[in-house]
């Protein structure tokens, strides 16, 4: 999946000479936390976040109330070294950028012009979709040996049951690196036959555990 598939294209921007109070007003109205600052060619020259604004605001305990502060232009407080992305970047890659640089949003530029924006919330929503959690299905968690071909073997068991797979996630077993955990969302209300079959084939099914009388 690439960035342009998930980015927001209607981006609200301000110019460097706009006042801090304008930014506060827009953030309140639009319920957003980041506004890119662009020059007349739509090139990103800065970024203003709700945190920058909080830093610039006088303390609520300071009763001298200096209104003038908020009339200052954004160029006085904006972040100038802005990390940007490209519409053709991979979503996985930019997730790492968010994580490494601890940022909350990423303006997207093409040919030096702002064309979109991605926030942490957009990313999280995309990952929720990738897990298939938005379609009717059952979740299976299977612990497997970490070696080539295992996923195909597991999926083959499911294929024999004529059940469609919504999504596949594979992650390392925290306790033992020789194993991996496969999380599948399958389009069936009755995964019991698949589970029994997986167990018969020697797999460890972590969830669901077969219910019923255990005494």
């Amino acid at each position, binding site marked *: 999946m690439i960035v342009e598939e998930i980015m927001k294209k209607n981006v609200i921007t301000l110019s460097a000479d706009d006042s801090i109070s304008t930014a506060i007003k827009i953030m309140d109205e639009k319920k957003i936390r980041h506004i890119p600052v662009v020059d007349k060619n739509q090139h990103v020259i800065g970024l203003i976040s709700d945190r920058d604004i909080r830093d610039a605001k006088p303390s609520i305990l300071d009763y001298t109330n200096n209104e003038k502060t908020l009339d200052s232009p954004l160029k006085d407080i904006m972040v100038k070294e802005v990390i940007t992305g490209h519409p053709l970047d991979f979503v996985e890659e930019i997730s790492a950028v968010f994580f490494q640089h601890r940022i909350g949003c990423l303006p997207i530029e093409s040919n030096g012009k702002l064309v979109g924006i991605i926030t942490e919330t957009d990313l999280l929503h995309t990952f929720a979709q990738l897990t298939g*959690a*938005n*379609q*009717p*299905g*059952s*979740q299976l968690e299977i612990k497997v040996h970490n070696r080539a071909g295992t996923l195909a073997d597991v999926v083959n068991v499911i294929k024999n*049951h*004529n*059940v*469609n797979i919504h999504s596949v996630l594979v992650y390392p077993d925290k306790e033992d690196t020789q194993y991996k955990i496969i999380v599948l*969302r399958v*389009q*069936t*209300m*009755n*995964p*019991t036959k698949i589970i029994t079959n997986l167990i018969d084939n020697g797999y460890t099914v972590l*969830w*669901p*555990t077969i*219910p*019923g*009388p*255990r*005494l």
Partner: protein
Amino acid sequence: MTKESVFVYSDELLKYRFSNDHPFNQTRVKLTYDLLKSLNLLDESDIIPPRVATDEELELVHDPKFIEAVKLAGEGKLPKETGYSYGIGTEDTPIFPGMHEASALLVGATLSAVDHVMSGKSKHALNLGGGLHHGFRGKASGFCVYNDSSVAIRYLQKKYNVKVLYVDTDAHHGDGVQWTFYDDPTVCTLSIHETGRYLFPGTGNVTERGSGKGYGYTFNIPLDAFTEDDSWLHAYTTAFTEVTEFFKPDVIFTQNGVDSHYYDPLTHLSATMKIYREIPKLAHQLAHQYCDGRWIAVGGGGYDIWRVVPRAWSLIWLEMIEKSNISGALPTEWINQWQPIAKLTLPAYWDDEPTIYPPIPRRAEIEEKNALTVTKTLYPIRNNK
């Protein structure tokens, strides 16, 4: 003649049958019927026959193209790939001969129940063959072809112009009904189910609250796996009472899936017969308190058809006719009739022994989490009081 309650039944309803080893097995309706008969608590005069839902009625909710596909499938004329796009011919909803007719009868049975109550011929009506809450507008899902409950609620709106409260106590989230009325403020849905993290269909989170004009009229209580009676009943009683008080419905429609029982093979909750005694009691009480008694009840899931479903479903009817204080042994006549066919030992008593399952290790945490979920779900209506 007016009666307090009617029971919709005909052997024809048992024709909704995917295959011999499919978990959704309507023999359970017959088992319940026989149990009530052997108690002499279901009289011929209590029974009304189901009618067939017309295509026009099905189209209140379903896409005409989907209905056409189901008809073709039942005649063996639907191409496989087309079937898949409508969710039919899958492991969950396989094709069977006459599937349109059987499904349309099942919907019609719920409409019969609705008409009986709304025309004032009875206060309460029960159709155990209904409750197929996973059916979507253009797709079969989770053992459900047509969604009788969604169709019945639309029918209630169009024909009788009433506000409907839909309460779903199946262990699976009532997704089909929820999404049908998601933006409609005249239908309020409350579903109490095992969390979607662990169970089909995966939805039914607290944050699903409706959209547009319908925002605030969808309530979901996802309970943790291994939830037991007391915690389950706390969620049910609190939520049902407060949501009814908030919504002030004209009619209460309950979906009575009985798959939250510990014995159920498809789910992971740890409830016992105790909750199935209480579920109809509260519905009955609230229907009289807010809706002049108008209460339509349907069946739903329930996959331990021998040990759980007949007892649990009988208690709905017994509550309707005010005989629900029954306890002790089940009639031997019924046990003798069905034990030779049953795949498991039939229960001897109405109530379960507390020892049917081993103690749940994280009980306190599960109860705490469930109580928090109830608080979160009800927060908007408590906050606006």
